[in-house]
């Protein structure tokens, strides 16, 4: 992790030094990307040989490197989007890059942490950078409002998370995640401290990944934040927080608290349903994507619930694969929003997308593929992800959850199709031109290829997740 953070920090410090002089965007971007790629190489090559460091507070297992690579990819894509986005390009790009990379360091800490205190540190690094990032958009009113909203609510959530850690420490005398696995008997004896601590911890996580009923901030913040930051939050934060959640689930601690599992089931059902049903009536595409991301958090939670009780690795690896696949298609969708967005919230309603599919074929095919993928239609990653998740749920006996899940993907197909209808089946209503440059188009192309590749050759991307999870399970 030291190496990893250092690699991520080197470009940041250069940028801070140069920030005062406002270097060219291209230079900033190049340095940042080199830094990210170097940390990616480090994550793959050096990470596994390190194993656990800092007395076991950080572990570099297969699961960590899988999520880390996803986070680094997300960071590159978000930077490219920021570089060309209407509301982010220009004067403060150096600061912007610094904050995104800082937030990414927080994310890397979170994915690899085996200690709740370290998790909290990572969470705070990630979140504080995000609070500022949301407010950095050029749109004065909305972006500041979103930043303030997220800051207030996010601080509460962090505090609750920390309080949960304190209670768990009080009950068990330890904050390492792997040692929680041994606390089953304590939980069975109805230890109130431990139970309350775990619940508070879950509330904190639930807020960050926008599970019902902690989801209400999501549409406002995603809508108000600059699009590249929304993309970064909607994907990066989910990847890491679900990885942390997964690590908790894989201790199998919750088997001793069936009430928690049944509560999680209710939350999963409500999250999926509320997200999808509310998304139907959205007119603004960013809000629509926000509600869709809430719904997807619900699907992912189904995988987590299966992982809570599963002794075999499929449930956890399905969840990991789904989170990463979800990130790919969601970044792609946000990238297209980024391309057509205008200053002061222009070109964001679904009507603006009418007839664009023919004028801009790459954007059209891209958005169509992302929408089909989000709806879970083959040959995209969304289908394979849902297949793995529902297979895991059925295997663990959560047939009801799987049925509600597929019914929800039916509901969701309706609003994803609305965007397709606008793209290909209606005449253009407004004159819409792309506002962002080549780097956004690159992101669209790259995520499009990934969406299809992860759908058709999913085994290639699924195998590392499976391997990582199997290793971790063997430890417990």
């Amino acid at each position, binding site marked *: 992790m030291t190496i990893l953070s250092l690699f991520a920090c080197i470009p940041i410090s250069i940028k801070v030094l140069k920030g005062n002089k406002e270097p060219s965007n291209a230079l900033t971007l190049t340095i940042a990307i080199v830094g990210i790629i170097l940390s990616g190489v480090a994550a793959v090559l050096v990470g596994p040989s390190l194993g656990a460091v800092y007395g076991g507070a950080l572990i570099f297992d297969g699961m960590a490197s899988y999520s880390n690579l996803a986070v680094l990819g997300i960071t590159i894509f978000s930077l490219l989007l920021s570089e060309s986005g209407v509301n982010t390009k220009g004067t403060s790009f150096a600061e912007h890059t610094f904050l995104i990379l800082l937030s990414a360091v927080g994310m890397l800490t979170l994915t690899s942490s085996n200690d709740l205190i370290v998790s909290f540190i990572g969470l705070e690094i990630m979140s504080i950078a995000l609070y500022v990032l949301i407010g950095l958009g050029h749109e004065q009113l909305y972006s500041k409002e979103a930043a303030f909203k997220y800051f207030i609510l996010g601080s509460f959530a962090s505090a609750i998370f920390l309080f949960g850690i304190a209670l768990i420490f009080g009950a068990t005398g330890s904050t390492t995640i792997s040692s929680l696995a041994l606390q089953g008997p304590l939980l069975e004896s109805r230890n109130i401290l431990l139970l309350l601590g775990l619940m508070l911890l879950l509330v904190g996580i639930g807020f960050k990944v926008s599970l019902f009923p902690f989801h209400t901030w999501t549409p406002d913040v995603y809508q108000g934040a600059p699009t590249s930051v929304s993309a970064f939050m909607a994907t990066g934060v989910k990847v890491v927080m679900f990885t942390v959640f997964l690590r908790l689930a894989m201790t199998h601690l919750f088997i001793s608290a069936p009430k928690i599992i049944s509560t999680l089931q209710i939350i999963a059902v409500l999250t999926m349903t509320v997200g999808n049903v509310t998304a139907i009536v959205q007119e603004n595409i960013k809000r629509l994507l926000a509600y869709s991301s809430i719904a997807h958090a619900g699907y992912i939670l189904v995988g987590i619930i299966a992982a809570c009780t599963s002794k075999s690795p499929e449930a956890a690896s399905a969840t990991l694969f789904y989170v990463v696949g979800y990130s790919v298609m969601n970044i792609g969708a946000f990238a297209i929003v980024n391309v057509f967005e205008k200053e002061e919230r222009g070109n964001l309603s679904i009507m603006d997308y009418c007839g664009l599919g023919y004028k801009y074929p790459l954007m059209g095919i891209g958005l169509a593929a992302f929408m089909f993928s989000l709806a879970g239609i083959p*040959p995209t990653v969304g289908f394979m992800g849902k297949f793995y998740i529902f297979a895991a749920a059925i295997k663990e006996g959560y047939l009801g959850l799987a049925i509600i899940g597929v019914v929800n993907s039916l509901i969701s197909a*309706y609003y994803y*199709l609305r965007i397709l209808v606008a793209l*290909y089946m209606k005449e253009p209503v407004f004159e819409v031109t792309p506002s962002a440059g080549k780097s956004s188009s690159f992101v669209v192309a790259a995520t499009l290829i990934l969406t299809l590749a992860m759908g058709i050759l999913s*085994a290639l991307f699924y195998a590392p997740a499976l391997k990582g999870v199997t290793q971790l399970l063997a430890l417990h």
Partner: protein
Amino acid sequence: MAALVFSVVEFVVSLFILQSFDGASHQLQFSESYSWIPSYGINYFVGIDGISLWLVLLTTFLTPITILASWNSISEKVKSFHICIFILETAMLGTFLAMDAVLFYFFWELMLIPMYLLIGVWGGERRIYASVKFFIYTMVGSVFMLLAIIALMYYAKSQTGVLTSNILDFYKLQIPFDQGTFFCPQTLMFFAFALAFAIKVPMFPLHTWLPDAHVQAPTPGSIILAGIMLKMGTYGFLRLAIPLFPKAAAQYGWLFIALALVGIVYGALVAMVQPDMKKLVAYSSVSHLGYVILGLFTLNSQGVTGGLYQMLNHGVSTGGLFLLVGMIYERTHSREISKYGGLAKVLPLFAVSFFLITISSIAVPGTNGFIGEFLILMGTFEKSKYAAVVAVTGVIWGAVYMLWLYKRVFFGKAGELISEEGHEHKHALLDLSPREVAVIIPLVIFVFWMGLFPNHFLDKSKASIEFFVTQHDHYQLTVKTGDPLSPVARK
């Protein structure tokens, strides 16, 4: 042009398969298997047997016809149109060939995307409503099938120790069945599959998406939809739902026979009163597909043979009807029957073609429709005399609505669109062009070839159908080894 050439090449390739297909064997031929998702035991596993053989040929045969038919009617976004047609063809062939359940589902769902775009982009005025309805309706059925497939995979794991989605392995499973209750695994899974297939067929009362989709779809879309896609459903019953869940299929077979009978009569009666030609043909599909389902659920040799044959007939005759309706629509931009009349005098060639396809549709002896319906009725009679009586009335209704349509459109006083006064399309009312004749002639040839020499077609399928009829309750389909065209033998 290139699209046409390639689709013809595909057809020729499929003829080679037909040539080297061994009709004496019921086994799976030309099989290929590659590992796809090893951790779940999912393979890219395809193969042909006597059941899928003709459906594959029907697909490759109708695709060039569709492309040729769209020559003039599709004038916008031609390239995208052909991309859609080819993706659709891939998905349809994949569905017929897949012998791995997940692969089957993969192609099954993939089919939705190009068809959705075909209706939604190139369709009529209410195309958006129709395409979304088509998409959601079909997806409702298939998602439950996905859950059932996953459940089957875990049954395979618990019974054989290996996680697999190989359909041949699924056939060997013993899925718990309890005659007394609906809520036993086999019955539930049977209905999960049956729902998907019944919507696709479509069986009464799940047919309501079909008229909308057909009326709004462009002519090529209608031809593919009626000619090939509807057969996915009936093929699904034959390949998956019945042999995988034989006990549930036997217990609830009466339900499907009853619904098929209702569909036959209801479809025909509703077709009769339609003012719109395309809608009429669409409802006639409901009726015809009712026969197919009836034939399959008799589970005897005549019935199943007739059902399979009727699938092909319906592809040829209804595909042809949609084609002809599309041709006249191109000329007059109206499908309203009451505006026509006396067309036979103006367009003699067109009238003759329409007549030939019509007699195929109403199953006049000597045409293909007769063989199919006759076999189905024979099979039904063996199963239940009362059902046969009801089914026979469908034959009468079929003749009524088709001949009445023919009379109203082609004979009598010249209608609003045809007469001298008050129409502006007179100059466009030319008889069939050589291209259009070239499109129709292969269909007409098949109408009579299949009607006069059914054995040319049935011989290749006989072994497979016999095997299905006698063994469907323990359907141990195997792979034929040593195929000349098969590069990889199954491990």
